[in-house]
């Protein structure tokens, strides 16, 4: 039997998706299905004076639901209970849902929604995050702060020597832009409950939220084929599922809700905008003496996952560097704007852009080569992070050396002419930029110990079913898990299959987030497979290969083993003071980007993107490279293309793919993707998490490259042609 780990076997979901057989929510046709639509706030902050129906409209086949129709609690339960499923007396952001309608056709539902009249009494609103903390009106708690935290390493104030270098960095919203918009189908069950079939990442989040809204637990959540998530389908599907379930329950028939792209862009969560102020002291050789960081993030109108996002930002704002002392203050505040939420990187990209740009500033100030400055300060074995975690087997230098070597070895691809871009290559200036980042894998601190992820394996004959709540949203879970089981048990891959991601069948394996699925849940799968083998040996009272034992018991009944995540007992974490082992391990990545800047227009053309990423072990190198390349392109989008333009009320104005610009294949550089294997003993076969780290590093490398090409110093994302041209001396 071939060892399957390290093999780039094809995705199990690939053929169905490529041939069009895979069924996404909108492909599911249920007889008698109604279509849902949402009536949303047009105000950032207002009292709802009345909800009335236009009596000239034909309502005979329309279902209408408002907050008074909610059988359970009017709350989307997540970290706190501040967000209602439907606004009651107050709206706190534009696009906040107020009422729902369902009708036999989508067109009729959208038309009906336009005939629901909301009467508002507008109230003053806070749109700018810099004017939120402690200000009126109050949106959350006593001071409009969702979460603030502070961490210290040594005493920053005691450091007075060296050169004081200060900087301020800013990043805007970013839309996840999954290809498939948010969508859910709610189907009433015979027992009076409801089945949710949705495009989602975390089925058990939806279960927990719906129990509260519906006031019962007669429900199951099934993940349909999902066209990307990137964090955008972590928490928002709870909202959409609640809406569809309310309508379906009320109508007594299936209800489908699939957002159009413009509605999805305007109403659903985005990456948190952030402002990071860094004040540092550095000695003249470039040694990092002290870091004083102040991170501010805009959470939007409701808490969602903001406390965890700000936590990850605080834990990554040091960058992968050794600081002798550090003081980090971080806060995420409320504004009357659509809530921000999970997005690949989850606070780390914002922090990492800031610290990497700041290292460039230090290098510029001290006239040190920016790459050498990084090399000098990268965390080494036994160093302390800013939480006092002792660094083990760091991959920063490995990654940096590998990326730089590749940049020297492989020839730079020629600068291709752009159709309609003029032919004059002389008017485009070349530049190269380098960044190094790390990313904590899995949940912060003792998060995994709280979640206690479960996986079940079922053996029947020679078939093993993997039952897990971890979903495949395009990243490869459904391929990796069978690969792990088959490798551990030394059996053909064809013996292993994934059970449908239906909460009626599968256990809670924790959410599919935080670069944790392969590393943490994969580890549980690995252990469960060993447990299954052990169970067969006990049953047969002999040691033998799994395949042999499984064949011998073919006629006997099914065998089921369950395993739960066992956190590394040596990890220590103080969640009050933010001291200790912030993450079980870290992935590390170096980026070398080559680009050209048009001196007339500030347009950036990408030529080559080299990434070297320490991911522990590549379980499936093809999928791993795909994740990294896709994530890196998404990062280039954030760097120079993607800007959410809002009006004075926080409403997204560029709500179409023609004006919210993400890169296309034509914009993608040639990519050289190096996987560095530096095994982590806590992960299956040494694997670490890798889903998010490609989002962290490229933007800062691009900024450095633009600076090298033009002299334009940009400390704000996105670096659109407008900003590049304006900053060009």
């Amino acid at each position, binding site marked *: 039997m071939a060892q399957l780990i390290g093999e780039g076997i094809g995705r199990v979901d690939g053929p169905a998706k490529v041939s069009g057989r895979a069924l996404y929510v909108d492909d599911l046709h249920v007889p008698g299905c109604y279509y849902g639509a949402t009536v949303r706030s047009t105000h950032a902050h207002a009292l709802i004076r009345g909800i009335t129906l236009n009596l000239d409209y034909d309502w005979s086949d329309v279902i209408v639901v408002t907050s008074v129709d909610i059988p359970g609690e009017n709350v989307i339960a997540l970290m706190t209970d501040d967000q209602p499923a439907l606004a009651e007396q107050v709206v706190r952001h534009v696009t906040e849902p107020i009422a729902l309608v369902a009708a036999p056709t989508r067109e009729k539902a959208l038309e009906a929604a336009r005939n629901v009249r909301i009467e508002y009494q507008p109230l003053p609103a806070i749109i700018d995050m810099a004017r939120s903390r402690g200000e009126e009106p109050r949106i959350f708690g006593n001071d409009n702060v969702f979460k603030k935290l502070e961490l210290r390493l040594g005493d920053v104030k005691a450091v007075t020597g060296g050169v004081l270098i200060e900087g301020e960095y800013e990043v805007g919203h970013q839309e996840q832009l999954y290809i498939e918009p948010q969508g859910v189908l709610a189907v009433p069950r015979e027992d009076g409950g409801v089945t949710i079939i949705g495009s989602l990442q975390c089925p058990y989040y939806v279960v927990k939220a719906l129990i509260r809204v519906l006031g019962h637990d007669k429900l199951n959540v099934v993940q349909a084929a999902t066209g990307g998530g990137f964090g955008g389908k972590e928490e928002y599907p709870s909202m959409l599922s609640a809406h569809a379930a309310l309508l379906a329950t009320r109508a007594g028939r299936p209800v489908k809700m699939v957002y159009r792209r413009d509605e999805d862009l305007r109403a659903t969560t985005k990456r948190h905008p952030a402002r990071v102020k860094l004040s540092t002291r550095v000695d003249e050789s470039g040694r990092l003496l002290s870091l004083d960081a102040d991170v501010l993030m805009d959470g939007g109108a409701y808490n969602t996952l903001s406390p965890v996002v700000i936590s990850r930002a605080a834990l990554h704002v040091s960058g992968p560097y050794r600081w002798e002392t550090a003081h980090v203050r971080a806060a995420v505040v409320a504004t009357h704007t659509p809530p921000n939420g999970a997005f690949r990187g989850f606070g780390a990209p914002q922090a990492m852009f800031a610290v990497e740009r700041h290292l460039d500033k230090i290098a510029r100030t001290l006239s040190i080569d920016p790459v050498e400055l990084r090399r000098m300060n990268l965390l080494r074995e036994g160093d302390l992070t800013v939480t006092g975690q002792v660094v083990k087997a760091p991959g920063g230098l490995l990654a940096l050396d590998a990326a730089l070597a590749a940049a020297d070895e492989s020839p730079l691809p020629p600068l291709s002419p752009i159709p*309609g871009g003029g032919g004059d290559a002389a008017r485009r200036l070349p530049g190269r930029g380098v960044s190094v980042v790390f990313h904590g894998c899995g949940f912060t601190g003792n998060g995994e110990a709280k979640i206690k992820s479960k996986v079940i394996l079922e053996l029947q004959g020679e078939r093993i079913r993997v039952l897990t709540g971890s979903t495949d949203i395009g990243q490869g879970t459904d391929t990796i898990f069978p690969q792990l089981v088959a490798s551990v048990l030394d059996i053909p891959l064809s013996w292993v299959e994934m059970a449908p991601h239906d909460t009626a069948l599968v256990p809670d394996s924790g959410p599919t987030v935080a670069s944790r699925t392969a590393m943490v849940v994969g580890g549980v799968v690995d252990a469960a497979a060993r447990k299954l083998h052990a169970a067969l040996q006990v049953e047969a009272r002999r040691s033998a290969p799994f395949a042999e034992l499984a064949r011998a018991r073919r006629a006997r009944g099914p065998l089921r083993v369950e395993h739960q995540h066992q956190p590394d007992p040596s990890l220590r974490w103080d969640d009050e003071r933010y001291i200790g082992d912030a993450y079980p391990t870290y992935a590390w990545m170096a980026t070398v980007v080559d680009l050209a800047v048009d001196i007339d227009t500030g347009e950036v053309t990408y030529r080559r993107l080299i990434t070297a990423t320490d991911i522990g072990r590549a379980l499936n190198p093809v999928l791993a490279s795909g994740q990294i390349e896709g994530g890196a392109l998404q990062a280039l989008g954030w760097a120079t293309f993607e800007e959410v333009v809002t009006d004075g009320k926080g409403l997204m104005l560029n709500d179409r793919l023609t*004006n919210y610009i993400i890169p296309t294949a034509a914009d993608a550089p040639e990519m050289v993707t190096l996987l560095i294997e530096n095994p982590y003993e806590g992960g299956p076969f040494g694997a670490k998490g890798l889903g998010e780290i490609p989002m962290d590093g490229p933007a800062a490398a691009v900024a450095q490259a633009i600076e090298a090409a033009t002299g334009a110093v940009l400390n704000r994302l996105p670096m659109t042609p407008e900003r590049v041209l304006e900053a060009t001396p």
Partner: protein
Amino acid sequence: MLTSHAEVLSPRSLQEALTAKASHPETVALAGGTDLMVLIEANKLAPSRVLNLWGVQELRGIDAQDGWIRLGALTTWTELIHSTLLADHAPALVEAAQTCGAAQIRNRGTLGGNLANASPAGDSLPPLLALDGVVELGSARRGLRRVPIERFFLGYRKTALERDELITAIYLPARVDGDETFFRKVGTRRAQSISKLSFCGRVRRQGGQVTLARLAFGALGPVPLRAHTVEVALEGGPVRPQLAELLLNDIRPIADVRSTAEYRQRAAVNVLRGWLESLAG
């Protein structure tokens, strides 16, 4: 929303199409639908009558006629790209077509539609202006008339098209030997982008002196426009790149979701100067 209430007529001849348009002037003409369907989907347009021109053969084809190139109004972007006639006579228009939309859009979107939609950012419009294009309009009652393209655009998304008229063709003069042209589209990404600004230039030189200059810009005002001040200044002398600064007299850029007025102004001057510098050598 394109509701089932809308009446869709699909004429098979130009005469039939013009008659239908004349008898119901509120009828919305549909060519490739690449602009129209977006407006309908966004609830910005709810036509009760639609005239589907796709089957009208007289509106198709690219031919050379008496020193002119005639492009039927239904000529698609894809047809522009693959036309050998245009590769010789209007390479700037071919380049513009290559930058327009995605392959699916280029297969449906038409030159006539681009003119009728009259977006100041329409990809074909600067080349048509720089090449001295003429628009041919047809009416059942008054027959055909020809309008120089610059006079076709009256204001923001307002054209010279009368309510009973359809665009039937676009005429371009055959290329004169020695004419030098240039097309540049500025957008955030390299494909499927609506321009922040676009530029098409054409100069003719004799003995180092500019005898004709056509400088046309998209997305720098309410209509696609020509930079007459710079054109006049250029004509009669050698190519002087510094004349690009005069462009500020000709353009009125605005800020919108795609860009800022300051950027459009600066980038437009830079692009023009860059081209003039390359001509000056």
